[in-house]
């Protein structure tokens, strides 16, 4: 290869290769939107054989019982929201009693294919709990909050 051609080729390569920041920006812009589901369920202790399940939850009652294999609970759906989020967008779900759960789809590239959320549970406008959740698509994350009367506030988060 002649020297002028080599120099031209190198120049073109340098011009074509974006800088590190530009590459990160491009990668973030390519991150897909996700269908994100956030729901809250009230679990109330019940004597064995007397537990009830909200009709809206009857199809997934077996899965809910697996979460508490050592105890018997009645389950009632408090709220559920499923929405398509772009990275940086968030969904919030009021659960009653001053509780609000929220999840933000983070704009973070993940080489393992995980979806990353910022999850928070607020009570009366103050954050009770917060964390970053990295989860494969179609996999759920749960958080339960013990209530003074023995009930549990069960919150589920997932995306795909």
């Amino acid at each position, binding site marked *: 290869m002649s020297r002028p051609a080599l120099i031209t080729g190198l120049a073109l390569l340098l011009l074509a290769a974006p800088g590190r920041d530009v590459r990160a920006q491009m990668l973030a812009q390519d991150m897909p939107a996700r*269908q994100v*589901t956030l*729901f809250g369920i009230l679990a109330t202790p019940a004597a064995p054989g007397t537990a009830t399940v909200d009709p*809206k939850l009857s*199809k*997934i009652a077996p*899965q809910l019982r*697996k*979460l508490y294999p050592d105890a018997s609970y009645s389950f009632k*759906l408090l709220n*559920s929201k*499923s929405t398509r989020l772009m990275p940086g967008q968030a969904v919030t779900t009021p659960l009653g009693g001053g509780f609000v759960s929220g999840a933000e789809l983070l704009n973070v590239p993940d080489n393992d294919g*995980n979806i990353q959320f910022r999850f928070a*549970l607020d*009570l009366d406008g*103050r*954050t*009770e*709990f*917060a*964390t*970053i*959740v*990295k*989860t*494969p698509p*179609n*996999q*759920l*994350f*749960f*958080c*339960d*909050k*013990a*209530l*003074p009367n023995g009930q549990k506030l069960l919150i*589920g988060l*997932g995306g*795909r």
Partner: protein
Amino acid sequence: MRLHTSDHEPGDALDLDRLWAATRPEEPSAETFDRLWNAALARASEPEVVRFPGAKAWGLGLAIFAQAAALLVAAGLALRAPTRKEAGPAPVEAPVVASVPEIQVDGGTIPIVHLGDRRGVIRGVEIRPQTPESETDMVADDLAVLGHMESL
């Protein structure tokens, strides 16, 4: 202003001395000095008194109103001030927000964060392996729940 010694000529000091001697006031006598000093001490030991204009200038009604207001404020403070026995507990500062830096969910597991009933208490972070009847059931439960919740 500070003057450097290099700014003076040797004869300047003598000129200043002559000027000082010519313009210096006469020293008071010892009796005069003692009289002045004792008067100053007596004034300094007297209490400072701020004299208000007389009642005629302010108005008798205003004076009575001011005294009544002072009595009301004192009574209010006396009624509100808790005694040592009645004083409530010291205010409790709100605890720090409970947080876990990051939760990595692996396939085939059920992650559950258990929060206590009191604010700021995390009772545990449980990563429970799923117990599927078959390999394909490992994600079936989550898919079933997600799909059902999306349909509500």
